[in-house]
């Protein structure tokens, strides 16, 4: 297999709130490993998944790890393609200013088109 063909487009779709279940944290672990394999990585946040990027998370009271600072470290792993669904933000009264990293806000239709271009879509 040539080097060219071993790079695939991996998209990680995050749909769940950051705490209460472990999906968000374990998704982040796969994202970092995939980047270490020099793949083309992008992340999407939609539905309650948009809360994963919410500024000012405080988890002491629920005795769980606040891993949200990790999202800020993603560009250090050359993960720069972060997309957030506009409809999901709107439905939750959130704007881009409420998020702790720079993202591209796309509407549902545009996101769908982007998913169509991927080789691998993993939804957590």
């Amino acid at each position: 297999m040539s080097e060219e063909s071993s790079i695939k487009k991996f998209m990680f779709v995050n749909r769940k709130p950051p705490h209460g279940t472990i999906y968000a944290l374990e998704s982040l672990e796969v994202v970092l490993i995939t980047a270490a394999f020099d793949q083309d990585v992008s992340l999407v946040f939609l539905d309650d998944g948009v809360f994963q990027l919410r500024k000012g998370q405080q988890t002491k009271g629920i005795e769980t790890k606040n891993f949200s600072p990790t999202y800020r470290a993603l560009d250090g792993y050359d993960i720069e393609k972060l997309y957030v669904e506009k409809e999901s933000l709107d439905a939750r009264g959130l704007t881009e200013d409420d998020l702790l990293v720079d993202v591209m806000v796309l509407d549902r239709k545009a996101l769908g088109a982007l998913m169509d271009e991927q080789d691998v879509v993993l939804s957590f």
Partner: protein
Amino acid sequence: MKFGIVVNEGPYQHQASDSAYLFCKAVLEKGHEIFRVFFYHDGVNNASRLTEPPQDDRNIVARWSKLAEDHGVDLVVCVAAALRRGIKEENLAPGFRISGLGQLVEAGIQADRLVTFGD
């Protein structure tokens, strides 16, 4: 076609592991190849040899083991997810092996289709 399979939910609690197993069987019956089945999140509980369902129910763990034995399917359990949930070499069912998340990424790269079962 070469398939990669991801199982993200535990046995009995969720339909995902039943669906994944039946999908794997169908894939093989149609003459396709399974590159690997990767167990992540609560999916790692599919690999516990301590599972003892009632006699009149399907044995989900044993079914996976038989799939590995009969068809040489590579069943890989994520080490970090497994340790979190108490799955270790000592209680690993036959046919499974414990390895890292790189095995999931490799399945994504090598397979023609990566099919996920879970929420």
